[in-house]
């Protein structure tokens, strides 16, 4: 398989937020200073007020389309109608990023509305490579693929997740959307070291970072972390983010919040924290050059 050269837009390198319906009116009215807005394209594939608001916002903000419906790791026939609708939306909104997940969600005709886990082996890798390539061909652009949060591992899974993502990027030319919270959640759930994970990831392929809150849940007496996107980013995740930036350099960073949605001000405050990390990174880089 030969990696194609797709158009890679020069994206923002600041902090953005996930755009959620209850915040839209306030964002339209106050136009807060964030580097970009990210939405799930599945919510904008018809018409009406949601799409109209997005059309207005795209005049002032770079947009990012973060898909959840392509089931790139699935084996049901690739949903060409959905892909065509995504392609139309990409053409209409001209987003800076288009991303999807290292996961599957459709089987036997049912869309299960979850990012379901793959065994990391050659068959999964071939499946992902084929479907990422077909998606990039249909959109005529590079996509970013995100590491999911995981609550189970398959016994047969001989490739590590970062190595799997690295090979996927190498074979298809796709980029990696690194969700630092998901790295933390998955590693904690399997008693792995998140720093080892990050070290194994090809940082030059990382085109965007995601941050979000997670919850700690008791499941049959064992603590399981779940990335419910329902709280502020946890302190250990901020630390992991700072370490990531040291290796990767400044990169577009998104704060996601989906459940227990707070006032917009709280979400903007989280984005401002990410922006301060990015700014500190830049000034350290400048100092290093000056020295």
């Amino acid at each position, binding site marked *: 398989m030969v990696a194609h050269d797709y158009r890679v837009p020069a994206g923002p390198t600041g902090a953005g937020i996930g755009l959620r319906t209850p915040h839209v009116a306030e964002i339209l009215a106050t136009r807060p200073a964030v580097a970009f807005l990210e939405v799930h394209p*599945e*919510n904008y*594939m*018809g*018409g*009406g*007020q*949601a*799409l*109209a608001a997005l059309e207005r916002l795209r005049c002032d903000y770079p947009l990012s389309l973060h898909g*959840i*419906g*392509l*089931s790139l790791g*699935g*084996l049901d026939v690739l*949903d060409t109608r*959905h892909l065509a*609708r995504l392609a139309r939306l990409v053409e209409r909104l001209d987003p800076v990023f288009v991303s999807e997940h290292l996961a*599957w*969600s*459709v*089987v*036997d*005709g*049912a*869309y*299960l*509305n*979850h990012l*379901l886990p*793959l*065994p990391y082996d050659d*068959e*999964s890798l071939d*499946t992902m490579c084929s479907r990422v390539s077909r998606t990039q061909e249909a959109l005529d652009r590079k996509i970013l693929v995100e590491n999911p949060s995981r*609550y*189970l*591992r*398959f*016994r*047969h899974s001989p490739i590590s997740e970062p190595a799997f993502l690295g090979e996927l990027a190498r074979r298809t030319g796709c980029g990696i959307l690194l969700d630092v919270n998901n790295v933390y959640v998955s590693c904690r*759930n*399997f*008693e792995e070291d998140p720093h080892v994970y990050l070290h194994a990831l090809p940082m030059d392929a990382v085109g965007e970072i995601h941050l979000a809150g997670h919850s700690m849940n008791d*499941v*049959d007496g*064992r603590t*399981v972390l*779940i990335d419910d996107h329902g709280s502020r980013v946890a302190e250990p995740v901020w630390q992991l983010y700072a370490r990531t930036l040291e290796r990767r350099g400044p990169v577009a960073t998104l704060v996601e919040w989906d459940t227990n949605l707070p006032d917009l001000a709280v979400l903007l405050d989280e984005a401002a924290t990410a922006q301060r990390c990015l700014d500190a990174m830049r000034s350290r880089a400048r100092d290093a050059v000056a020295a």
Partner: protein
Amino acid sequence: MPSLRELESSFGRALLGEPEAALLDLIAADGLAPAARLRIYRNHVLVTLTDTLMATYPVVCRLVDERFFGYAADQYIRAHPPAVPCLVEYGDSFAAFLAAFGPCQHLEYLPDVARLEWAINRALHADDAEAIDAARLGGVPADRIGSVTLSLHPSVSFLSSPWPVDRIWRANQPDADPDATVSLDAGGAQLEIRRLSEDVVFRSLDAAAYALRTALARGDSLERAAEAAHSADSGVDLAQTLQQLLSDGIVTSICVPSPFTHAAGQC
């Protein structure tokens, strides 16, 4: 090790039903029973899809209470999981499901309330389309006007119910008078649901207007739609009923069949 297809198929069945032993054998325990790990995924699927249905059917949820709604939604999701990843399009068969769902058979009006909520949801997310200038119908030759068909805006749909579903819906809005009651004997409703500017609206139509518009929405010619309107109300003022349709801004195209082929042309 089964194929990836077999693994995913078994995983899917476990999320909508019970896990098979062969699937559990594939999952590493990592200090927690594989079945418990699968339940984390299943809970997410059922909770988020129930939330989706609740967001689309808030009045149904209010009428039966949240617990019963959750019970019905759980049964519905397992039997009718989404077929598409756009969740605003999920739940179109929920009204039919409720009509056949034993525990709420006594709420005879409930499926029609669900149909109204589905029509509202559909209108909210329907594709955009421009209304045409009504004057264009005046340019159609008189001998062909009867065979014209019209396309209505994608957001438009119609609902006929023997129950006062419009009043039930209004009485169950967050800002409604909490002491208001609706008599089920208040009569039925023939409603048109559509998007107006960016908001969804619905209203009652008289019998002739309802017959004319539903016939046109089915693809009937203007002549057949006019006959339907006349059957519904023999005293109908057809010109006025048609004029009202054109001035409502919901006609998005006029199709004049060719006089030679009687097929759709000049659309």
